[in-house]
């Protein structure tokens, strides 16, 4: 069962770097993160990598394995042939700090710009009543482990640094959808999603959904319903008038 694998790991920092070749032992049942840890313990003690739970629950160990955005702790070695070179590189959309560690602060800044849950007025703690069918839709989005693989994959920002300003990304779209579908949230978030967070820039390629390790249907269950309802809201003549007048300078 034990064999020696060929690994190619990107090493470097914000000033530059490149792929480094390693030959490293692999045992039955191991995942890519185990192999990275073995490299640390035996060949490259200062190899930088993030991880916590090693069970796909914390979303720390995101990287690109043979070019595919993956959690390293959930990528089993038996998905590769023994003679296959396994290439591990940092997430491409975010600036490298060192080796496999990137600066993901973009996501925290965007999260801060989304207005928080607005509790219903006059309902005391302990008196919240909601039906399971109604919370279920938002619960799907709350499964998000913030691995940011969807953010990393989305072509709107993957190679377009200039779009980062206006585009919050799929992780934030499900957060908006989650709040919008929360049975007791007292804010309307649809127009805001379009105007302040760049929902309109998404052209529904579904790449985000494909990489989500939590299998959240980001596009079908969050983005598309939000887009459809944004349309409804915007073309409601009264709302339309209201929002336009409200925005006119001087009024």
């Amino acid at each position, binding site marked *: 069962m034990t064999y020696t694998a060929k690994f190619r790991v990107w090493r470097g*920092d914000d000033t530059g770097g490149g792929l480094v070749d390693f030959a490293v032992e692999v*045992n*039955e*049942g*191991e*995942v890519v993160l*185990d192999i990275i840890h073995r490299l*640390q*313990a035996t060949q490259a*003690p*200062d*190899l*930088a*990598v*993030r*991880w*916590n*739970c*090693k*069970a*796909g*629950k*914390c*979303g*720390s160990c995101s990287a690109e394995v043979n070019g595919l955005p993956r959690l390293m702790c*959930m990528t*089993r070695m038996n998905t590769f042939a023994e003679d296959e070179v396994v290439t591990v590189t940092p997430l491409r959309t975010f600036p490298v*700090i*060192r*080796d496999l*560690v990137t600066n*993901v602060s973009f996501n*925290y800044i965007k*999260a*801060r710009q989304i*207005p*928080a*849950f607005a*509790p219903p007025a006059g309902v005391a*703690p*302990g008196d*919240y*009543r*909601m*039906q*399971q069918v109604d*919370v279920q839709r*938002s*619960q799907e989005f*709350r*499964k*998000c*482990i*913030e691995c940011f693989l969807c953010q990393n994959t989305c072509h709107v920002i993957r190679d377009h640094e200039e779009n980062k300003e206006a585009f919050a990304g799929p992780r934030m779209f499900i957060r908006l959808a989650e*709040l919008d579908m*929360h049975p007791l*949230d007292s804010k309307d978030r649809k127009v805001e999603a379009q105007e302040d967070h760049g929902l309109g820039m998404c052209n529904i390629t579904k790449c985000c959904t494909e990489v989500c390790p939590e299998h959240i249907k980001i596009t079908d269950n969050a983005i598309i319903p939000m887009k459809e309802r944004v349309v409804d809201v915007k073309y409601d003549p009264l709302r339309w008038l209201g929002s336009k007048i409200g925005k006119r300078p001087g009024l």
Partner: protein
Amino acid sequence: MSQIERHSYDVIVIGAGGAGLRAAIEARSRGLRTAIVCKSLFGKAHTVMAEGGIAAAMGNVNSNDNWQVHFRDTMRGGKFLNNYRMAELHAKEAPQRVWELETYGALFDRTKDGKISQRNFGGHEYPRLAHVGDRTGLELIRTLQQKVVSLQQEDFAATGDYESHLKVFAECSITDLLLDEASGAPRIAGAFGYWRETGEFIVFEAPAVILATGGIGKSFKVTSNSWEYTGDGHALAARSGSRLINMEFVQFHPTGMVWPPSVKGILVTESVRGDGGVLTNSEGRRFMFDYIPDVFKKQYATTEEEADRWYTDPDNNKRPPELLPRDEVARAINSEVKAGRGSPHGGVFLDVSKRLPAETIKAKLPSMYHQFKELAGVDITAEPMEVGPTCHYVMGGVEVDPDSTAAVGVAGLFAAGEVAGGMHGSNRLGGNSLSDLLVFGHRAGLGAADYLQGIAGSRPSVTPQMVATAEQTALQPFHNEGGENPYTIHAELQQTMNDLVGIIRNGAELAEAIARLDSFKERVRAVKVTGGRAFNPGWHLALDLPNLLLVSEALARAALMREESRGGHTRDDFPGMDNQWRQVNLVCRAEGDGIAVEKQPIPVIPSELLGLFEVSELEKYFTSAELAGLSTGGAQ
């Protein structure tokens, strides 16, 4: 001295798990300028891994539940060694703390009438755990994280700066507490640490520090805990003159994965059993019926028929022995494996596949389904899992004042969550940690606010000397010549603890462990790291090693002194529970380069709380001398 980044706050919260975030929310809400410092990214603390639920006697599923019943279960689970006041506050305040989460946006699973659903768990008399599938910890941490953000949004609206009153310093590790000892008794002046990203140092000046650093699991080889659990808070407290209690009590969760080797130790949630899963040995026998201890005979079913009826009719049947407290189940599994009745990879079988329809399993236990499918290639809706004990939780921790969470011995130091000791006695019930985080996190925030008010203008100051010493210590591993690599030392330390201070202990092995730990001291002092200071995991581990070693020694020494078996401490040379020992807490202090342990009487439980139990039950735990005084005191 080089120019070091410096910040001044009212309170520094070390840790961004459930306890730390709840404490920070409270501190900020009380008007304190608050910093949260954590080793990982924001939202990734260990709490994220909790699965089963939060225990709180809301009585949503069984209206017989109330704080008294929860208190009783907690004391029983801890074998009456718990700090009664902490257990009381916890049972009383947990429901409010859970309800409050809904006002922050949490979405728990619901009952038919729209309330928060509650599930069964080991040691809890009624369905009590608020939950979200089997990802409750994720919901808890995300909810608190988003509450922090919402407070920052309020601050932004008021000041134009999101971080004016509450700032998160993520991927920043604290290596030392800075103490002002000018007036004789130590008091907190601040904390010293480094940015993981750059390796640059950082100094916090603050009169109050709340430790919320979690546990110590990384001192064992087989563990459900992540790299963060190196006992930093325990060690920081001990080194600054505070004390650790109950360190001999370590919870080995009965069900960790055993195969494949690389995932050995990863947790299999207790909800699998709460929702109907049964444990069997290689002969197909439900062996837990053979392991019901006398003290629990009245509460657990003795036949499979009765146990199975309980899932649908809990009022008229006793619960299955698979739901005994964790220490009992872990020992039983250990015995079955030792007796040669284990599964192929050295565990036992845990099966839900024959008990629940596949769709129900996927709905109730989604992340377990996922975890086994992806990591072990096992479909839990069709075949049994293989499981065995794994180091999970430390009951021991910083000795605190129950009401304020103030650490004994150091003014301005507070501790909440897993790093604090006393609440769980000798064994923690599942679900009682997440509630503990909320109840005592909240109290820590209040405690710090009161403390600040008390000291008013007389803030302690950080001196250049303190900073220089901390800096030197942190850089030493780069200067050491000829020392070993930190990974090697860590692996051997973990092996030693696993082999000699594990689930079943004895005097000879504990003495051997202490001797070996002693020999690690020199190796740790001489540890050598290579590379630079920027994001260098080897260096980070080198700085964790002294903490791991300190808690390991505290554990081993306390375990050697306690000559009985109770909860998370099992001695095969002293197999019985000894009621004399129930009256004693073991207290660890840092002394020289080691740990000194001494006995301390445990606080006397007031009679109105003892009155919640039947005397016949108390007789199993208390000495006759203790009970003699009680007959007039009110127990029925």
